[in-house]
């Protein structure tokens, strides 16, 4: 008896759910139908549709990805472009699919932010030969791919000069997100910059995760522990190239009453926590925004890919942020170092010594 009644109940709920699902689908169909003409009408006069796919960590990292987004937004305001930005799943498994979805939705050009896109941009560029692609931090791999590269070691050299000049203990630190060749460029430049001012300075170096494990770019807890250790050991300034994990470095600096150097964006401005802003002495700017915007502008002007564009100190593709005025007193020293690098008097290594 009870069994029967329950069956009826179960059956009833199944049917009910199916009806609901059907209703949801029906309603959904309606939305899509009304959406399309609206989307078409709102497309700006320039007809430029720019797609951008973020790296793991996504938008809101107050650093690398946000810098790329700033360039995209500039294209929207200055060039009248219609823009769409997508973030990958936490495991990064759908990077390629994001590029394809943008291509299928009519976006051209499409930008992959981060070296991890290398293989996916290459594949997508082959599948969609009529669409122009760009990749940040990796070289061009096809005739319709532009590589947007940065001389991180040069900017990091300046960060090293600033850190050494400002360090009272003669002891600084470097926290890298993932131990790969890109982040090692930051370390190499920083190292050379510090040594150029204080040859006997002590530099603590920690990488949060080994190569291939990208979690180091989004682990503020690990960044905090690494920086805490450095501050306890006597370092008074820590430079990070660790994406999202940099937040932890700033937290550690705030707790220890010491200083930190941000990366990619002007983090003193982009970090929302006010208590953390004051610990960010300066930031090594990697003008991904300039790279992204210039690429879109060049595309509009009819430029084609197949080559790399390197943004270095000469074109202010890298540099130091001056927000807060904490490095104003060593401006001459920094300007001289910059001039020497631009002239070629100083050659900054892109691989750490050891």
């Amino acid at each position: 008896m009870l069994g029967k009644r329950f069956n009826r109940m179960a059956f009833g709920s199944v049917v009910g759910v199916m009806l609901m699902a059907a209703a949801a689908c029906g309603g959904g169909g309606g939305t899509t139908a009304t959406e399309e003409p609206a989307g078409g009408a709102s497309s700006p006069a320039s007809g430029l549709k720019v797609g951008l796919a973020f790296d793991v960590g996504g938008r809101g990292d107050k650093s690398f990805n946000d810098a790329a987004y700033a360039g995209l937004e500039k294209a929207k305001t200055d060039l009248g472009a219609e823009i769409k930005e997508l973030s990958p799943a936490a495991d990064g498994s759908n990077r390629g699919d994001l590029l394809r979805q943008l291509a299928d939705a009519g976006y051209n050009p499409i930008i992959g932010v981060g070296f991890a896109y290398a293989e996916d941009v290459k594949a997508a560029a082959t599948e969609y030969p009529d669409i122009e692609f760009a990749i940040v931090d990796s070289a061009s791999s096809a005739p319709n791919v532009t590589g947007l590269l940065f001389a991180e070691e040069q900017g990091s050299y300046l960060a090293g000069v600033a850190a050494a000049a400002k360090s009272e203990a003669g002891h600084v630190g470097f926290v890298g997100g993932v131990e790969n060749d890109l982040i090692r460029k930051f370390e190499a430049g920083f190292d050379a910059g510090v040594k150029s001012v204080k040859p006997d300075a002590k530099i603590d170096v920690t990488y949060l995760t080994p190569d291939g494990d990208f979690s180091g770019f989004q682990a503020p807890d690990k960044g905090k522990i690494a920086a805490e250790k450095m501050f306890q050991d006597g370092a008074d300034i820590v430079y990070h190239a660790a994406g999202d994990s940099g937040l932890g470095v700033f937290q550690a600096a705030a707790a220890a009453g010491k200083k930190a150097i941000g990366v990619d964006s002007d983090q003193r401005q982009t970090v929302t926590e006010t208590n953390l802003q004051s610990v960010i002495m300066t930031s090594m700017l990697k003008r991904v925004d300039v790279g992204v915007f210039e690429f879109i502008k060049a595309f509009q002007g009819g430029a084609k890919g197949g080559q790399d564009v390197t943004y270095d100190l000469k074109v202010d593709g890298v540099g130091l942020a001056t927000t807060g005025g904490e490095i104003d007193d060593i401006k001459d020293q920094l300007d001289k170092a910059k001039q020497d690098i631009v002239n070629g008097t100083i050659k900054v290594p892109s691989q750490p010594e050891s």
Partner: protein
Amino acid sequence: MPAGLNRALLTLAGAVVAIVLAIAVCSVAIVAAGGDPLHALTAFFDFGASERAQSNSVATLFNRAVPLFIAGLAVAIGFRMNLFNIGVEGQYRIAAICAAYVGSTFVAPAPIQIAVIIVVAMVVGGLYALIPAIMKVTRGVNEVIATIMLNYIAINISAYLVRGPFAGARAEGELTVSTPPLPDSGMFPDLNFVFGWFGMLAPTREGGLWGFLVVAIVLGVVLWVVLERTRFGFDVKASGLNQSAALAAGVNPKRMVIAAMVLSGAIAGLIGLPEVLGSTGSFGTTFTSGLGFLGIAVALLGRNKPAGIAVAALLFAFLDRAQGPLQFANIPPSVIEIIQGVIVLLVVVANEVTNRFALRLEERRAARQLKVTA
């Protein structure tokens, strides 16, 4: 009404109620994130406007489901014996890199090449799972802790191998590292022709519809037969339900622990192969990680049965695929992870509730029948 059908209906109703509840909870999350729930629901079914986009989307869905399905199977074998193999994550990563590397070192006709790669992956995965199994039977080390620790070791070893001994030539100006590429004979043929049967365009995405789907289906069927229709499967089940009873019935518990763990690890070894043999042709920095942990959720959701795991894997793949369309609909990507979490939680709760309900029904019926005969 036969008890089996009763039970099946109950399960189905439980799952459906769980999904409806999940949609309700997620709607709240979507509204909180500033989106429109109806819009989001549409996005799940938005496979793209052009035929090309639709074919690619379908291929993406199945390509995502295949590794999840295999991961679910690997975890489920342990679960059926009350063995928590949390180490699937490490087992599949170390197996994938070894298989990809070995496969790149020689060239043979395709069937041999692929067979060798598959065997290497299964052997490495199985051997890596043998470590915690031996620790458990000889020293009583809890397999949960042992496998978690072994995950860290495996992840770091594979990260070391891919940039060191197993590293292949790196393209000029690229920062990603990977094992040397497999020869063409190592690439598993795709299943793009299937799309023709349905009058669809063949997918243009790299690798198309991965042929490893066939291996996964065969694996699922074989495993079902082994678990449900053989002495070994019965022993596994008996050991899981009641170890002392199984021992009394002549099942050697130590042997069972080792056999189940090694089988679980061997299947785990296959998780990475669809991707390696299907599109990338190598194990690199962008190799998909985390599938071992997702496999735990998939196995739970599928109640440790191959058919259920297949449904669960497809559900997960369906949700994952919508990451792009959801963002086109201005829904933040993190919401999708909330949805997955909520569904798994609710389905597990629903499973438990329906289980208890079914048990009570069974007890009452038995009581009633006893009264009649008395």
